[in-house]
């Protein structure tokens, strides 16, 4: 008994000595200037380090966001390799890509005119200062019109060697915001901004609170940006300088673990690190976690590839909307990256690369992309073309015993046992449209403090105040696309949200 007490006593004294020494070392470390929040100077591991996420060395805890909600849809046909240049002869400028302009803009040019890359093609009557410029040099061969004579495409036949209009680059150091804004308007670059809330084209009368750039794309089969950034650091940093003048606040760049060092070491932007499944790469989600949009505030966002185009404009004085597009999907024979320009003809991009079948060609990813035909052109923000099979087949007892594996967030499918299985994915709805029944499903797919189902109900009843209160200012269709994918009741959430956004636009 007494020996046991003695041994315990010895252990207690030893433990006290070790603890004392440990604390003394920590005090000493703090005195000599070592940051103890980043470096653990004690011999005992900290609970936060064991349990919490690992903050990488190039960022701090406040700029490090781990998102739990969401889901990565793994589809087959991922693009691989470095981007290869492809000969595309036809390009188009599409007024429908710009939300907020009239369906019949006024044309500067006519069929048969020769234009250089950067020459104005059309303008909106209500804002004649903003030019919508040609992505390539060549000859205008057709002005395609759609319903009610609205202009669908202005088609340009590209020259073999491109000619660029030379712009007079304004000074940035003088921080002459007005001068820079009018330059951006006349060069057509200002249309690359997407204004939030509501996802309309940038309003020149408004100074945005901040500018957000998403440096990675988590959508299914989305391209990785690492290859296209090689050699373009100067353009990126120059663009960020320009953006700092454009906004009154900061430029935020959100990246992931796999992002290249070009992004990690960008100058002038506050870099935030996001870790999590899709939609962590959505700029709307990132804004919510960095600095949410409050009522009355406006922010602008820009795609990374457009940022590089902006940088090139300010470095070289030319408008060259080069884009890397991933050709991917289960129906593509050789999934690869292609270097082309904005507005390229789809048929020429996927020439001889499609399996012969009943296919659906999507400009964009399977969640937010647009269903287009081979005769159509990619949109201004298209970064991938996904080609999958149409799903117009009947499946016996498909809801009970599915034979073909299909992507699902539900654990009723045994697929969660094989988390890395890549699915072919087709367009079958796998069920019919029903009323909202299941609850909590959308919240699991959206890592934001928003209740999507109640927002949808508020939109359906047209309650503007409730919509605003529930967060419609923070959402665009791409943010609820994953919720729509997982919806058991097969509701068209993006369509409902679009109606709600249109209601809000009309309101303000």
């Amino acid at each position, binding site marked *: 008994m007494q020996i046991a007490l003695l041994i315990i006593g010895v252990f207690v004294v030893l433990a006290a000595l070790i603890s004392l020494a440990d604390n003394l070392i920590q005090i000493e470390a703090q005195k000599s200037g070592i940051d103890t929040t980043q470096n653990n100077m004690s011999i005992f591991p900290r609970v936060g380090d064991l349990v919490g996420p690992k903050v990488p060395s190039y960022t701090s805890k406040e700029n490090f966001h781990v998102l739990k909600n969401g889901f990565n849809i793994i589809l087959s046909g991922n693009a691989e390799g470095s981007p290869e240049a492809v000969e595309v002869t036809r390009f188009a400028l599409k007024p429908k890509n710009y939300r907020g302009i009239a369906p019949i803009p006024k044309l500067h040019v006519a069929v048969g005119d020769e234009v250089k890359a950067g020459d104005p093609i059309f303008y909106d009557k209500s804002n004649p200062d903003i030019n919508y410029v040609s992505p390539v040099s060549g000859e205008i061969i057709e002005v395609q019109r759609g319903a009610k004579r609205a202009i669908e495409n202005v088609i340009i036949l590209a020259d073999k060697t491109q000619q660029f209009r030379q712009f007079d680059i304004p000074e940035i150091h003088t921080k002459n915001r007005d001068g820079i804004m009018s330059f951006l308007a006349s060069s057509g670059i200002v249309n690359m901004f997407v204004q939030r809330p509501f996802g309309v084209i940038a309003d020149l009368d408004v100074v945005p609170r901040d500018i957000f750039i998403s440096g990675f794309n988590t959508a299914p089969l989305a391209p990785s940006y690492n290859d296209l950034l090689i050699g373009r650091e100067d353009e990126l940093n120059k663009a960020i300088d320009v953006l700092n003048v454009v906004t009154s606040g900061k430029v935020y760049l959100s990246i992931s673990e796999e992002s290249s060092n070009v992004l990690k070491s960008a*100058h002038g932007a506050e870099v935030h690190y996001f870790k999590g499944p899709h939609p962590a790469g959505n700029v709307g989600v990132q804004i919510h976690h960095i600095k949410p949009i409050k009522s009355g505030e406006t922010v602008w966002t820009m795609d990374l590839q457009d940022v590089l185009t902006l940088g090139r404009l300010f470095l070289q004085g030319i408008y060259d909307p080069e884009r890397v597009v991933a050709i991917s999907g289960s129906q593509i024979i050789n999934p690869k990256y292609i270097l082309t320009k904005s507005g390229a003809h789809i048929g020429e991009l996927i020439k001889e690369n499609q399996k012969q079948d009943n296919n659906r060609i999507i400009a964009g990813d399977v969640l937010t992309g647009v269903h287009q035909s081979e005769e159509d052109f990619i949109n201004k923000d298209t970064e991938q073309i996904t080609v999958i099979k*149409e*799903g117009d087949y009947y499946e*016996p007892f*498909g809801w009970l015993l599915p034979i073909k594996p299909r*992507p699902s967030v539900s654990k009723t499918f045994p697929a969660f046992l094989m988390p890395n299985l890549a699915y072919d994915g087709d367009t079958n709805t796998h069920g019919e449209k029903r*009323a909202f*029944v299941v609850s909590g499903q959308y919240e699991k797919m959206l890592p934001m403090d928003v209740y999507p189902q109640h927002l949808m109900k508020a939109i359906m009843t047209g309650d503007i105040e409730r919509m605003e209160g529930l967060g419609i200012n923070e959402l665009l269709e791409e943010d609820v696309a994953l919720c729509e994918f997982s919806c058991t009741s097969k509701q068209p959430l993006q369509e409902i949200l679009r109606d709600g956004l249109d209601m809000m636009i009309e309101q303000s």
Partner: protein
Amino acid sequence: MGLLNFLKRIEPNKKKSPFLHTLYDGFFTFAYSPNTITKGGVHIRDGMDLKRTMIHVVLAMQLCYLFGTYNIGHQHFDALGMYPGFLEGFHLKLAHGLIKMLPIFIWAHIIGLGIEFWFAAKKGHAIEEGFLVSGALIPLIMPPDIPIWILCVSIAFAVILGKEAFGGTGMNIWNIALLARVFVFFAYPTTISGDEVWVSGFEAIGAEAAQELSIAAGKYTDYGWWHTGFFNSLFGWMDLPQFSDYSLPVVDGYSGATPLALAYQGGWENVTATFSQSQMWWGAIPGSIGETCKPFIIIGALILIATGIASWRIMLSMLIGAIIMAMLLNAWGATPFMTVPWYYQFYMGSFFFAMAFMATDPVTATSTNTGKWIYGLLIGMIGMLIRVINPAYPEGWMLAILFLNTFAPLIDHYVLSANMGRRMKPAKTLNPTIGPASTNPEKEIAHA
């Protein structure tokens, strides 16, 4: 392929016979998932749909069905004093159970689905799958001897007034299965409360009739053609014991009281005098058809949680609420029922069944996660309170769940108000030195 072509050929015309078309559509989509493709919005859709969700709930209940059906027979023979072991007289007990259970099951579905089909045809939309679950739940919460016509009236009430009047699946405020039961509870209380209704197959022979037949008054077995005609010939052919051809009396001193009724009268000692703990846990006790076997219900609950179909938050908070209230009542200890230790409260009654299948109905519960914690907690507390304090009926989950169904929108309203309030507050940034829309004088412009 041949079957598919055949089915497509016999499709009734939608305009000329809407009811037949709806009926056809219901069975066709049951057999084949439709070939609709996505249009606008996302291009691929999740493989999960409402049919699949519903069928998993029904599958989770199947163990309760198996046990419940057999238990009907076991309780019947227990009252006769025959075949005391649980598995003795297996074929007889199973037969009796089926004779009692199948009519309830079949009629519940005929009435419920019939009404749903008619409304779907009238409104011109597809048959919605909500009744798959309600129809599977209703037989499990009814006493085994319930008159079929009362069952049908209650289901008609529940489906027409409780569901279709509000707009169909996904629009109802109250749990449909519980509405059916509460209708029987208030309109025909003697068929669903008391000590006599939980054991089936007996009829009471009054003093006068007994004198005429020169037997003692009391309860005697009430076998019909299915017992003495159909099953007896089947068992006779297989050389097994048969149902008795003449009426047998219930054993002296048998009361068909459920553990809850006994606890109300005399506390835990009174309960354990009649039933052993393991008997109560495994469910060889009188009660509603599906609610007695706790382990099978818990397995069903685990299936629902593992597949992500039912909310674990509601189940957990309901358990916590019930425990808290039971402990409070233990502390108070005014009546014999209140002195039943809180951990023994769960051996009795239908707590687990209500927790696993009734409270977690997503349409009638709160839809926000915070709301689910509050909802479950209140159901647990109020249900336990009603069970212990209610003098007329010693079980409270049906009433508690319907009560909270009424208040679920209110709970959601407050959760959403909190969310809206958070959103409308002035901006709170991560970096406290930068306010909203301010200029940052230290921005560096690195390149010349």
